[in-house]
């Protein structure tokens, strides 16, 4: 079992050309074994790139292939439009890796999805994507570092820490059900809580490793959810203990976060929720190993 994606998931690549990020990583996803059924690029409609048919629009591609997931890898100016195009075509799961989308565009896209396309889930933007090892890899995660089979689910706000997390567990010969990188942007389409809830409901996932970082209050909200809605064990790491205060958001920003946003405050909130907190990624691997040893 897994969450969000599995071997039946059929994936489209938006922004698909041989030399684009979408092309490079989309074809790597295909080589990994992901069912990449089509690409979208109006300038290359009708062509095939390494056996993958290219369509002019998401709607045409969905019609022709039955795709139920999309991988958006287009520049910031075009990404919100691409996400909404996929949602309008009825794609239920959209992964956007694009870095540098303006925060207002993210907020507008998120709320437009909520209002007009509640059946579509967006993962990202500015995330590494999602991998259910051995079945489906959408995004930029190097598939070879992931060991499948469970029993651990991973959710992370940071891209490279997501890989670090997979690596730590693989070194200990611990398998993963699904690993989700939600991204660290101001308005992520999918939250820690969305993933924790899915892991809680997934019978194969027995424990969760969570990787957070400073800023915002997503970790504190996750802690509240873990304390009240989860009975599966969670181990966590929060990056940025030694980071200096980040970008100053002025007075208004400090107030709405409802927390200082520091690593310490987040770790305290998680500990209070019964989460085992490691001080570096390797320690989380060890904590998970201890948990798995009790199963």
């Amino acid at each position, binding site marked *: 079992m897994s969450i969000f994606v599995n071997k039946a998931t059929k994936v489209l690549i938006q922004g698909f050309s041989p030399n684009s990020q979408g092309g490079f990583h989309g074809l790597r996803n295909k080589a990994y074994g992901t069912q990449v059924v089509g690409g979208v690029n109006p300038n290359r409609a009708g062509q095939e790139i390494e056996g993958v048919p290219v369509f002019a629009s998401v709607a045409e591609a969905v019609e022709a292939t039955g795709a139920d997931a999309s991988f958006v890898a287009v520049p910031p100016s075009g990404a919100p439009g691409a996400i909404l195009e996929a949602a309008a075509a009825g794609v239920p799961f959209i992964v956007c890796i694009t870095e540098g989308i303006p925060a207002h565009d993210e907020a507008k896209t998120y709320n437009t999805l909520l209002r007009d396309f509640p059946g579509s889930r967006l993962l990202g933007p500015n995330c590494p994507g999602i991998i259910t090892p051995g079945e489906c890899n959408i995004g930029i995660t190097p598939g070879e570092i992931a060991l499948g089979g469970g029993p651990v689910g991973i959710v992370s706000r*940071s891209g490279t820490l997501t890989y670090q997390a997979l690596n730590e567990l693989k070194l200990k010969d611990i398998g993963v059900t699904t690993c989700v990188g939600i991204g660290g942007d101001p308005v992520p389409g999918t939250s820690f809580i969305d993933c924790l809830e899915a892991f809680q409901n997934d019978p194969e996932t027995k424990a969760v490793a969570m990787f957070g970082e400073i800023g915002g209050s997503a970790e504190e909200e996750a802690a509240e959810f873990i304390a009240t809605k989860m009975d599966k064990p969670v181990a966590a790491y929060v990056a940025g203990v030694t980071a200096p205060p980040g970008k100053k*958001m002025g*007075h208004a920003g400090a107030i709405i976060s409802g927390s200082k946003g520091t690593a310490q405050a987040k770790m305290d909130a998680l500990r209070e929720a019964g989460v085992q907190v490691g001080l570096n990624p390797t320690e989380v691997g060890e904590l998970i190993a201890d948990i798995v040893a009790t199963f």
Partner: protein
Amino acid sequence: MDLFEYQGKQYFARFGIPVSAGGVADDVDTAVKVADDVGYPVVVKAQVQVGGRGKAGGIKLANDPDEVRTHAGNILGMDIRGHVVRRLWIEHASDIDEEYYASFTLDRSAKKHLGMLSAEGGVEIETVAEENPGAIARIHVDPAEGLTEEAARRWVEAAKLNPKATDGAVDILMKLYEAYTAGDCDLTEINPLILTPDGRVHALDAKVTLDDNAAFRHPDWEEFAGLAQLDAREALAKEKGLQYVGLSGDVGIIANGAGLAMSTCDVVNQVGGAPANFLDIGGGASAEVMANALEVINSDEAVKSIFINIFGGITRGEEVANGIVQALGRVQIDAPIVIRLDGTNAEEGRAILEPHLSDRLRSKPTMLEAAREAVALAEGTTGGAA
């Protein structure tokens, strides 16, 4: 990017938000000339991006040219919490009946824009939030729907401003929302927003933070750049387009991704070292970017060792390795380098580095081992072969 007050006011003026007549001055003579133009009395205000200017003596009222000369002379060059005053904003002084607070920012938890309005302005809003949270009227605005005048009016009524201020406040808040959204701001804040004895509502201060990610559609923002106060290392990093924050230790850090870069600093700290910086080379970093990053680190004299921590996803291992080799050929790197390379095409990358490995360039398989090695090198407690 944070704007200075005078830039914020010029920015607000574009959207029709009433601000006081004024001008900038970098020397005393210009200050007097501006004051003569806008009319006495004037307020002489230090232009620094730090709070508490008034308490520090950086804001003074002047009734005539002599007083402008005195205050401008005192404030220029003044050090306010580590910020040296290089520029003044001189504006016509306003008569104030009441002081309010108004702002828009993005509420990450609610995923909507948040407007805050309070009848208790002119003081630190954190203090109001703590001592009298009921005095702040909040409104969530759906970014896909926008702010209607009707909603703004209800919001103003909820804030219990002086009824004389209602129409003026609604007008300014609609314009402030327009300035906030059309301008891709992380924050627009007016504190204080004032009510004058003749019933006008007016922005007496301006705090604006622009979202750097939106710069691609705002070519006019270039006029705001170049005045930010960065240290030499940060200025070089910015010129090279790198995400860099200077710290006070001696282990230079280069990593890909903000999370891994922060975590690398944490781990160096945990094994007894001190990071000299945070440097994120971002996703998809090319050889050129890696070479630039090494140059920036190398320019920091405090750095005694360099820890390069790369876990490739979008960043490819061979690009990273080529960058290091290229940088070593281009500039004399003074400190020894420890690299940990994993992820996409890591084996190709390691193969490229292999012939270059030496006491000056070491490779370690894990993050913890590499951190320990880099810290030991910085302390001078290891000299053995790689």
